[in-house]
């Protein structure tokens, strides 16, 4: 079985303006959603209380909410979770109250409603921990991007390829952020981990395409850059799609079977993988081309021999 029975020859470069437009649109939508709606930060970052409670029978979300409000909890958020018998409760942080006190009050209020209510999971995160986790998440993103930029600068010798790769790398996590801002899915630590993985994977494709570009330029110094880039993308296309399909299979399995804890994580990965495929095909190489990439940049005549031996 093959996706493409013969070597494909799609004119990716000729249509690049369209893809720029599409990406620009994605970016505008993502960023404006991010800045206007913001992220639905999980208690990992905001601090607060999150509980999962199962009741013996179906339970009305509004009743629980009223009950909790009456018990003195401010702005309780109550949602069904999985089934009609399971609810998720979220409370804002309360610096005055210890975790023990909150738990006791919460259990008290719920038991009044139904003595069979069982707290399956309870998380209490102090506001200061939340702020620190927020900081370390931003740090993690920063250091990953920094590490990857350094790697790109070291790896590709010409800023034209590096610039293309960097734009592609930024493109994907922004899209994931936009998705989480638009859907208001809960954004927790695991999603940050997924975003970092996405940054890594997204570049992985770009690197494979660039690797091929280098190889094509070497054997084919006379051809127009546009032609070489198209050839390179086409030649790696079946690999790109194949790898992404396979990775998507496992991520989809994780999304639908991994349970609610991993939902955000797998959604972020899936979006990131799709975006990464698109950006490595349409963005990174096209940007390099528009920056004036030629064979001479990849293989300066006098340094050719030295570069051949790079890994």
């Amino acid at each position, binding site marked *: 079985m093959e996706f493409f029975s013969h070597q494909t020859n799609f004119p990716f470069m000729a249509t690049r303006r369209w893809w720029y437009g599409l990406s620009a649109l994605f970016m505008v939508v993502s960023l404006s959603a991010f800045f206007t709606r913001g992220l639905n930060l999980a208690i990992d970052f905001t601090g607060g209380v999150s509980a999962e409670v199962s009741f013996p029978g179906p339970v009305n979300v509004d009743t629980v909410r009223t009950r909790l409000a009456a018990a003195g909890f401010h702005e309780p958020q109550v949602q069904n979770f999985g089934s009609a018998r399971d609810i998720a409760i979220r409370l804002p942080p309360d610096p005055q109250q210890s*975790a*023990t006190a909150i738990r006791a009050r919460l259990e008290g209020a719920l038991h009044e409603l139904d003595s069979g209510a069982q707290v399956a999971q309870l998380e209490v995160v102090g506001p200061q921990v939340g702020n620190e986790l927020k900081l*370390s998440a931003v740090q993690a993103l920063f250091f990953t991007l920094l590490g990857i930029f350094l790697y790109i600068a070291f790896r590709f010798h010409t800023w034209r390829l590096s610039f293309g790769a960097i734009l592609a790398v930024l493109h994907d996590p922004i899209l994931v952020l936009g998705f989480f801002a638009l859907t208001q899915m809960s954004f927790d630590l695991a999603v940050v981990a997924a975003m970092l*993985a996405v940054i*890594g994977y997204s570049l992985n494709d770009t690197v494979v395409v660039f*690797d091929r570009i280098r190889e094509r330029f070497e054997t084919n110094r006379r051809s127009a850059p546009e032609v070489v880039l198209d050839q390179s993308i086409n030649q790696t296309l079946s690999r790109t799609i194949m790898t992404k399909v396979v*990775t998507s299979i496992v991520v989809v*399995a994780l999304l639908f079977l991994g349970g609610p804890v991993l939902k955000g994580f797998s959604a972020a990965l899936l979006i990131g993988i799709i975006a990464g495929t698109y950006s490595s095909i349409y963005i990174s190489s096209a940007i390099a081309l528009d920056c004036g990439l030629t064979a001479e940049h990849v293989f300066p005549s006098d340094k050719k021999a030295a570069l051949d031996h790079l890994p």
Partner: protein
Amino acid sequence: MLEYPRWKYLLVAAVLLLALLFALPNFFGEDPALQVARKDHAAISDTDARSLEGFLRQRSVHFIRSYLDSGRLMVRFASVPDQLAARDAVNEQYQGTYITALSFAPRTPELLRALGLRPMPLGLDLRGGLYLLYQVDVNAAVSQALEGYAQDARRALAGANIPVKDVALVALDTPRPNAVRVVLPPEADVNAARSALTTAFQGLTVTTESLASGSAVNAVLTTAQIRERQDYAIQQNITTLRNRVNELGVSEPIVQRQGVDRINVQLPGVQNSAEVKDILGRVATLEFRLEDMQHNPVEAQQTGRVPLGSKLYTHTRFGHPVLLKREVIATGDQLTNATTSQSQEGPAVNVRLDARAGENMLRTTRANLNKRMAVVLIDKRRETTEVDGKKVAREITDEEVVNDATIRGVFSNNFQITGLQAGEARELALLLRSGSLAIPLYPIEERAVGPSLGRDNIDKGVTALLVGMAGVFVFMALYYKTFGLVADLVLLANVVLLTALLSMMRASLSLPGIAGIILTVGMAVDANVLIYERIREELRKGVSPQAAIRAGFEKAFSAIADSNVTTLIAGVVLWVLGTGPIRGFAVVLTLGIATSMFTSLMGSRALLTLMYGGRRKLARLSI
């Protein structure tokens, strides 16, 4: 002809065999188990074990088998009700002797266990339990130390008849107090004051200063001393928490420092956080007492006749009972510090008491030279037991003599305990501090996962893993035919290798860790795809099958290496910056890259060479 060096075949075979061995314990599952430990931390002997087994049989509690594991007895059961029945029976019969903890024992065969092979421990999100993050108020530790110095200073000056205007904690060039300032009235003699303060301010940097209202003597803690104080505060709390956790009877608890001023406590299987925090938050205390040397403690224990004015202690660190005088010389809240140092007689513990206890100590030591003095650690706790179906709480006091030494000189608030091994000195200092004034700590993060939710998480994770892997396997086989099957074998080897590495590292497996394994399966395919696509390309060019295989591996190498480096960067950053389950994910991601490089480059090449290398007439490849 396609060839592959023999040593590489051997390497691949050896690595895979070892991996299989290390991964094996993970496939046997677990039985509910009861862990029994002695209350006095001594190892359970074979005889004790036999009598416990006999007791369970006599109570007709059915168990599969029991074995000793690092001084503790593990009893395995076929079902949870058996496990609970055994716990209740042992608790009821041996309340004072043993602590029990519910746990799970891996069903690993004896042979593997004897080789030290164990399955991956499960994280709290998978087995259920309580995670607590405590904030230690390290600044309070510094203030407490300064308060102690201030008190000593007042006493020293009063003793020398030097007038004092004020003694205060001040912040010199720092946002928080780091110094004691003694303000003297104008008529006071600064030099006399300074020399009177030398003992009180031992170890501190002492400076004098002229103020408008008179002069002042400052004693400053250096940054290093402050950090040392803070470290002590953390260590002290960790020791206290460990002792508490042990008495909770949790199996495989984790108490560890996190960052500068945090302690994280992980208690698998524990649900009731209120009760736990009640126990963890409690403070022990200490008593310094003289030993009663006129009477024989062994005799007192045998006859049950304890001399008047003395008390018999049977629970001691050194094994034999002692008789101690009733009068208390000093108590834990008067102990300001206990540190270890090297003396001429080997490792020593330096004890520092406050001034009032120092005076008492001076009087006592002067009158009792060459007699013995002991340190008793007293710990009060509440224990709830079920009597006739009703929960009854009672207070239990544990008194343990942790040290017993001869008084070799007259001393007051600063003295040394010597004649210890290095490890003993460290432990004694920690025990002393754990019974001294408490450094406040409060929980700032708490996560509780119910056992059924944990079970649910494992089931979901494993289902996702199996379904995802099956999908990939089928897809690869359809797309690359025989080569796809080879890739599937290589993937399987990759999962085994990753499992083996994780088991060897004893890294605990969390739900994000399972997600990492699933992701590794998806990603590991990439290397194979890169190679196979290259082989197809070469075949399309009309290259012979065997040459195509060789070219495929060689040409794909740079792309494979490159593409893995980028993921590695993200993995390493997460590993360094992440905590808890996120770090678990990072560990799996990073190791997964290494194992997938090995299996897809070396493993699949070895297999393909074996399959196609020797065939002279190979017309086409099934790819």
